[in-house]
């Protein structure tokens, strides 16, 4: 079972925007869509390492600000002709607070 930790209020993230959290696995971008869904993805585009947290959020997609790769935030898969994926992390909202997988607190054995 996934254990979750509180990282802040939903309102700390603008709609169609993102905030970064620093984690044991590197920076993770936490996105909020227009309809208040929340997604967490590694803040690193697989193409050239661009910060996805600074991309334009449209629907449940985000466009990397460096070279316009587009990712489906549900799966982390690159869209269109580009091939690649970003790791996604379990995240949810309860009573206006954002909870993220506690895995991110601890360094994995592999790392």
């Amino acid at each position: 079972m996934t254990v979750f930790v509180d990282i802040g209020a939903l309102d700390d993230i603008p709609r169609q925007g993102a905030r970064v959290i620093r984690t044991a696995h590197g920076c993770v971008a936490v996105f909020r869509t227009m309809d208040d869904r929340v997604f967490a993805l590694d803040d690193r585009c697989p193409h050239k390492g661009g910060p996805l947290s600074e991309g334009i959020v449209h629907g449940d997609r985000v466009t990397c600000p460096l070279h316009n790769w587009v990712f489906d935030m549900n799966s982390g898969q690159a869209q269109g002709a580009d091939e690649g994926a970003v790791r996604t992390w379990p995240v949810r909202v309860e009573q206006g607070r954002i909870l993220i997988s506690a895995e991110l607190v601890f360094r994995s054995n592999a790392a």
Partner: protein
Amino acid sequence: MKKLVVIGAGMASGRLLEHLFEAAPGEWQVTLFNAEPRGNYNRLMLSPVLSGEKTYEQIVTHDADWYAAHGVDCRFGEPVVRIDRANRRVHSNASSAAYDALVIATGSAPFIIPVSGYDLPGVVTYRDLEDTNAMIEAGVAGKDAVVIGGGLLGLEAAAGMAARGASVTVIHLMGHLMERQLDPAAGYLLQRDLERRGIRVHCKGATKAILGHGRAEAVLLEDGTVYPADLVCMAVGIRPEVRLANDAHLEVERGIVVDDALRTSDPHIFALGECVEHRGQLFGLVAPLYDQAKVLARTLMGKEALFQPVQTATKLKVTGCDLFSAGDFAEGEGREDIVFRDPGRGIYKRLVLRENRIIGVVMYGDTADGNWFYGLMKDATDVGEMRDTLIFGPAFQGGSRLDPMAAVAALPPEAEICGCNGVCKGTITEAVLNGATSLDAVRACTKASGSCGTCSGLVEQVMKLVLGDGFAASAPAGMCKCTDHSHEDVRRLIRSMELKSIPAVMQELGWKTVGGCHSCRPALNYYLLAEWPLEYQDDRQSRFVNERNHANIQKDGTYSVVPRMWGGVTTPAELRAIADAAEKFAVPMVKVTGGQRIDLLGVRKEDLPHIWADLNAAGLVSGHAYSKGLRTVKTCVGSEFCRFGTQDSTGLGIRLEKLLWGSWTPHKVKLGVSGCPRNCAEATCKDVGVVCVDSGYQISVAGAAGMEVKETEHLASTPSEDEAVEIITAFIQLYRENARYLDRPYKWVAKAGLDWVKAQIEDLPTRHALVQRFEISQSVYRKDPWAEHSTATETPRWAPLADLTLEAAE
């Protein structure tokens, strides 16, 4: 040369002249009379003009150059009043002309129902540009308009006026709208769509009178209903304009009677278009008129040709209403229907079959397969084999998956692509193979998609089939994959429909995606803030990272910080503050830019508000080195120090920068001001350049020094610094209001034409209005974003939301 006189410069006679000049150049000396004070324009496009999506200039078919090139003697604004058959001359009130052959193309006149009040001011018809302009100039926004007649023309008038903000009611005599083209079910869907867009529809309504004292005020129906009306548009139908022919004692029934060669009862007189009657039939749609033009051109060249009318299809040109109709769909003996409905999406398709052949098609909501059905109908193809899946369209036949290209690929060469001009697939393929590789080129040599334009997508698909991956879709396609509207259309509709937010634009213009994409959102944000500076709230989340964060992102995710140096002038105190900030935040690189200022590269995001606060404290503000807006005004030292300087170029540069800074523009804007023609500020490759001379200021625009290099072009000269500033401000505002997002001024000027730009700037009322609108916008945007984002509440938002590495340590 033989003398040809043509009465009426409409679409049919225009097409006739094209054929004639192409096939027999120099054979005819043409004199062209027209009652309207202009030449041939695309009347099918009047409804986009009415709604504000297009301008008259965009729908002109033949301009003055075209007529001049073919030696046409144009007598526009001169209605012909008499035909003298005995002496073969026609007369207007101003002149006359002799003919060897005469073509009557007088078109049609709107039918006026003779109820009381029909002649009151405020009652108009909808046939030509005058009518259209009358409706536009009546300033219908916020007023009540009534359209009498729910046919094709009436509905286009209604939608156009609604787009301009009128409260519109349509009164229709029959039980459902467009009863000649639609069955009741499709008519209902159309009515529902129109009502959703705020147009009231009253069917089975017979007009009894138009009420009003001195001008139209209301419309009274037979059933007693009264609708208030500041403007009444009568669009109940048309009748052939035959008065001249009657007076000349030609044979006239409902229209001017012509034979298969389009000859009237006088062997020297011919007729075509909406004014003719051929074997008892009248014509209103453009396709048969173009066929007539083809036939008459051959007749005039002495070749044999026979006009044979074919059935034509109708499409409604109202944004958001997608309907298609062709053939006969009345119920009757031996007829069978295939019907498909999807009420949730408002889709309705009906095919009428007789003996396994399609004889009628009605579609609403999804008309993509219309031309395919129409082709089957025209060719009387036996559809027995595919009856089970016929309604699902060509992509479904043979079980292949839905691929729009497959449908086009499956069409035979003789399949018609452009209904208006009767162009088939084979003709387009041939044109492409002969070197027409753009939509414009194909349009130019085949006429395909040149009239109503609804088949442009199909034409492009045919081109793609021939060219494969070598084909790049043309510019007037949608602004991105989210919409089929072009940048220009979106901008016009934002204005005419008064759309004031991104969600409103996406909803009203039918965006195909949720929340748009990285391409359309920044463009929409710009168009909205440029159109509604006081009302629209800038949407930070629709901006590219650099503009959202007021700094340029670097490849490692850090940012560069460039404070403004007005006109490239700085002070020891400012330099000291920059040096202190660079040391305090351990800036890895300090570099002088090409725009005469200093760049601090490699600043971390969370440090941005802190470094800005330090720079603000020394009086430095954002240099907007990241924006599609005013970047820099580069100057030389000018008359203050330089022995060659003629004017105070530094002072003028600072003045311009203080006036223009903070403004958002379609793309970045850079200025240069040089104090003499030696041009040390390199002003003549900037977006706007000023070169000072003894007598004053030479202003030139539209230079480039990036991927393209281009010298500026002269815009204006003035002895006065104040006027120079005014001219430059007006030019920037004109660029803001008209250029497509991401077009630099040199690209925009190339499209708009320098002459047009000059004309706007030279006209003083226009110039002053531009300056005034710029100032209104600047009252909102002439401010320092760094100060706004380095406050106590904003600063924490630039740092990470949480640091889980610290929790792990705990």
